[in-house]
């Protein structure tokens, strides 16, 4: 039994709206070899890519599963990013889908919310979605040195976490990512958005099995310190969540969101290909 301080958490509402797809710098992206390509994936609502699906292989760029919501006001934008936690409940509050319930499955430049496929047909760009934000301040009482980031109590209890005989927190992960491929996002603090895997070395993705990564996979990065930023530090351990799809651009690729920061002294992991948020949240019957 994982003991937490969840009875002390404050639950509050925060809202954004489904963002319109936009090309801010013209349509072209340079791919790994400099070829200019045009790809969809960010903003709006992605109908056919859902958490649990492969992170690689789409003809898209940074594909954000589900509805991508944001707010024009900078303060609200950051509150959405700093207060929303994975697994938080969301509800549509305007438009044809008003009343439909979804769940937070990622944080990229926008907050990503999964809905049942039957809700898709009713959703519209601009619809407002309200989140019951809960999870800030969450701690594991028996693992006080581990920093939790953006995890709801519901996800914590679904992750099959256990305290090993040596006192470490044992976390099932779908795979381990080598720290040397962690790229874009190193310039940001680890409370804001994600860090991309750089996937430009396509042969390496295949050799190391990284191309089997799925959206929603829980992963570990060894020798990565994610307490206050994201950087190389021997002996540190980051537990992360894959939140968006691959990219054509160098230094970019599947997005990896920090959910736990710790060290070898307090975290160990086991590899379980089923360690995926969609399964933990029971939002897909086919997984």
């Amino acid at each position: 039994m994982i003991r937490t301080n969840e009875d002390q958490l404050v639950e509050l509402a925060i809202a954004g709206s489904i963002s319109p797809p936009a090309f801010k710098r013209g349509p072209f992206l340079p791919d790994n070899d400099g070829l200019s390509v045009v790809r969809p994936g960010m903003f709006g609502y992605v109908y056919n890519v859902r958490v649990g699906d492969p992170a690689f292989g789409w003809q898209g760029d940074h594909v954000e599963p589900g509805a991508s919501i944001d707010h024009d006001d900078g303060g609200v934008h950051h509150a959405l990013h700093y207060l929303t936690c994975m697994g938080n409940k969301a509800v549509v509050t305007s438009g044809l889908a008003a009343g439909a319930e979804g769940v937070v499955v990622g944080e990229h430049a926008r907050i990503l919310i999964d809905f049942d496929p039957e809700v898709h047909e009713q959703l519209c760009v601009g619809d407002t979605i309200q989140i019951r934000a809960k999870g800030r301040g969450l701690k594991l009482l028996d693992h006080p040195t581990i920093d939790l980031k953006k995890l709801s109590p519901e996800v914590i209890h679904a992750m099959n976490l256990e305290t090993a005989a040596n006192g470490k927190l044992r976390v099932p992960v779908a795979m381990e990512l080598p720290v040397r491929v962690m790229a874009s996002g190193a310039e940001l603090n680890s409370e804001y958005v994600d860090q991309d895997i750089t996937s430009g070395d396509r042969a390496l993705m295949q050799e190391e099995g990284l191309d089997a990564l799925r959206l929603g996979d829980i992963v570990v990065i060894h020798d990565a310190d994610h307490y206050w930023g994201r950087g190389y530090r021997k002996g540190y351990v980051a537990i992360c969540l894959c939140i968006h799809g691959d990219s054509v651009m160098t230094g970019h690729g599947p997005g990896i969101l920090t959910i736990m920061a710790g060290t070898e002294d307090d975290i160990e992991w086991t590899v379980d290909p089923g360690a995926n948020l969609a399964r933990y949240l029971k939002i897909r019957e086919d997984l």
Partner: protein
Amino acid sequence: MPTRHNADKLVHVSVMGRIASPTLPGLPAEPYRLDADGKPFLYPTHGSIVYNVSVGDSAYGWLADTIHPGVSIRLADAGANQGLNVLSCVGNVAKVMSGAATGATGMVTGKSGRFSEHVIVHFTKADREKMAIEDKVLIRAAGVGLELPDHPTVKLKATSPELLEKLTDGTDGDGRLKVKVVATAPAHLLGAGAGLVSDGGSLHVQTVDRDALADAGLDRLRLGDVVALQDFDSRYSHGYFRGAVGIGVVGQGDSPRPGYGPGLTLLMTSHDGGIAPLATPGTNLADLFDLRP
């Protein structure tokens, strides 16, 4: 044999920036940044006229966050600033065009990246004393378009023809371009800047893990040192790629922030290993160009 290039075909254009004021976030009580252990710190950071730090000085030990040696310039308009940042090349001559230091000449030594996007220019300390924030600094920009006919996979960025000639030392037995460097940075120690543009901006050596830094021989870098990047492809933006080799120059000093450290301005990259770094202690802009502090 000197490395053949197309410098006679380059177009020399003027770009101008104004000496940038330091900026910090406003109240309430948020001037702090966080170090790698979460401790708030408040130090001078990028921008302005830095009176006492110059190219050739240590990149470490200053009570500062990614400090820019000499003078930093930028423009308020984002598009114009992008033109300034991308077209300026290391080794280009700069000239002060307004204020008490009018006529003083200097040299571009680096660029900074996301969140500041300055061009960093060396002037003598005596000239810095006469300068004022907002003074105009004009650069004779030449280097974008520079190519090496004998090394088609070597892409040059922010390299002036003068710098190219000082850094390169012919071709090795495998046909690779020999480039003088003081050290080589392994991919796992390259952090902030990955995924961002390589035609301007900066890519930072990570310095939180001091043992790893010392193991790589990167713990004694000086501002202006030329460094190789191992397994990093910087043709279109920066990212890990086995066998790729890049060359950068230390444009900014160390930082307490995670993911950060001395900032490199990218000079060259070859995704198929067409660059052979040649360990040459003392390969520093201050010495190569005889820059007086």
